[in-house]
């Protein structure tokens, strides 16, 4: 078998193919850097948090978000690759939603950014569809048996965002203050109870 010991280091492999493509005049790294920089600077869970906070304070927005998420999210200025077919699934006292991509790493880039390593790793991908309640408990999120767990395997075009429940005792908070409470994990569904 091909042991990793005998393989060129990963840095050398990346550098090799990149250099050859640049020398052939095929790869424009400067132009691609602009795109990558855009992802790094403009995308991330703070965007999704704004969507969630708006839905909490604006019942009509919440309706639009649940009915046609892509358009509703675009109202806040978020969209683009891996975000142009959005569906928002809402947690309720009786339902908890969990998002996974068992086949690869599909994730809503505009609202959550690029996915964390654990989301793309075999342990999460294999277990989320098989034993979600146990998996969540191991991750510190205990879902009691009276709550149905709905797992969403994003195996096609749609990318999912979980709409978590608004924490109790936040009636006086502004939309901006509410957005601060919303975590990345709550929008994937590996967290349920947000804290103030």
């Amino acid at each position: 078998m091909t042991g990793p010991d005998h393989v060129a280091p990963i840095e050398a492999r990346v550098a090799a193919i990149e250099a050859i493509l640049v020398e052939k005049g095929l790869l424009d790294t400067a132009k691609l850097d602009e795109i990558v920089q855009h992802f790094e600077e403009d995308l991330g869970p703070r965007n999704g948090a704004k969507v969630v906070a708006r839905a909490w304070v604006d019942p009509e927005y919440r309706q639009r978000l649940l009915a046609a998420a892509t358009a509703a999210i675009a109202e806040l200025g978020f969209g683009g690759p891996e975000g142009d077919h959005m569906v928002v699934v809402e947690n309720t006292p009786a339902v908890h939603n969990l998002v996974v991509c068992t086949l690869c790493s599909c994730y809503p880039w505009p609202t959550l950014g690029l996915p964390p390593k654990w989301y793309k790793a075999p342990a999460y991908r294999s277990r989320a569809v098989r034993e979600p309640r146990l998996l969540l408990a191991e991750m510190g999120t205990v879902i009691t048996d009276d709550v149905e767990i709905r797992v969403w395997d994003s195996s096609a075009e749609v990318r999912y965002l979980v709409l978590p429940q608004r924490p109790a005792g936040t009636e006086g908070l502004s939309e901006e203050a509410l957005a601060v409470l919303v975590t990345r994990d709550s929008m994937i569904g590996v967290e349920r109870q947000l804290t103030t």
Partner: protein
Amino acid sequence: MDGVHDLGGIAGFGPVEWTPDEPYFSEEWERRAFRLGLGGTGIAGANGGMFRHSAERMDPAQYLDSPYYEHWLTGVTTLLVEAGVVTAEEIEERAGGPFPLSRPDRGRPTDTPTDDRTEARFGVGDRVRVRKWHPLGHTRAPRYVQGREGVVVRVDGAANVPDAEAHGGGFVKNPIYSVRFASRELWGEGGSDGEAVHVDLWECYLEEDA
């Protein structure tokens, strides 16, 4: 392709190694591999289905043991070699050692539609069964739902069938559904009550459940 990338339900991977927060790229090579993925697929004349399948064709042990962006690097470089843009010798010489590529593509655009279809045949509430065809090539119907019964819970628009796209069958539109499967339908006695899995499936993956 019933490969190890098709991870749903496979046991033995242990706990999730969760991190509260992390940079998108923890090492510089990851950022460069991501950039290569963005640019390289087009240079190879490949499409999204081909890109995904290029990583699925990796040696299974390498796939499971490597950091995520090594999938991108290995997949895109395989596409570039297969397209004749670069040679395996060229990249190995430059890298100063072996550069593992993915295995040959065994897929064919058979058993997938050749004509666009955008009108949905099924509606919300319809019972469907996922076809059991275990293709050797790319598909977005995970193995754990093939042959299983579920209920349509959402009808989405039509999009290109990945199985055709990945294997020279071109861009053929076909409706997509979200199908709900009871945990016990998927895992039998090993499943749980109060858990359901929803999988997004192209219409050509589905049959009416009589």
